[in-house]
């Protein structure tokens, strides 16, 4: 099979579109993070996000978050049509600031968690999850 000049150009454009696309998707996630943190800096430690490296079924992906001393933890799926997943607010009777749940992931992407600490600082953790079958049924 021979590529004409036109084919080659089209392929090139397609490749460019593919590399640009993920950034557009995560713009919504960045907005969600900004509205949660108010633009504050985020530390890399203090929050543990546990998610599988490979999830066969994107409909139920077990994730857990743990951030000692946090008042709330927000979980985001950066590659979903709407990135918000859940926000956990911990009350005075929470023994540990941790929670586990099962989430839907539309495809292979980064899962991000942001914890708001009692002293007003923020911590961030992220984990890449490979998804074999997407879970949003478009």
């Amino acid at each position, binding site marked *: 099979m021979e590529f004409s000049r036109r084919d080659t150009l089209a392929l090139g454009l397609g490749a460019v579109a593919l590399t640009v696309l993920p950034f557009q998707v995560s713009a919504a996630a960045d907005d969600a993070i900004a509205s949660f943190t108010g633009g504050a800096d985020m530390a890399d430690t203090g929050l543990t996000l546990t998610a599988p490296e490979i999830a066969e079924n994107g409909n139920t992906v077990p994730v857990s978050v743990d951030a000692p001393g946090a008042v709330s933890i927000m979980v985001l799926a950066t590659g979903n049509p709407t990135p918000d997943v*859940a926000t956990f607010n911990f009350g005075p009777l929470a*023994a540990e600031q941790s*929670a*586990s749940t*099962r989430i*839907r*992931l539309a495809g292979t992407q980064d899962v991000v968690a942001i914890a708001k600490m009692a002293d007003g600082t923020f911590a961030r953790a992220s984990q890449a999850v490979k998804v074999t079958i997407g879970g*949003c*049924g478009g």
Partner: protein
Amino acid sequence: MASGVKPRVKVPKTAAAGEAITIKTLISHKMESGQRKDKEGNKIPRSIINRFTVEFNGESVIDATLEPAISTNPYIQFEAIVPEAGEFKFTWYDDDGDVYDQSKKIAIG
């Protein structure tokens, strides 16, 4: 759509005062995300549990905001302190305005 919604929670029957216990909750709910389409290509409207709260003797343990990205039959596990004997109250809020609740008593011993 609120048919077949059944909340289930797992709480130990007894605990030592001040002990941290693990609580597991599950509610059967289809959590329609609002992204799916039916055979005719029409969007199926969103219908999810959007909030889940737990209180112990009126004091908050956890208050979670849930979005459509939570799986069908939302499962949530967390840790709680039991300062005295009392009752956990679990509440789920549905998009259609329904509220499902469940309570579990716990004794000190």
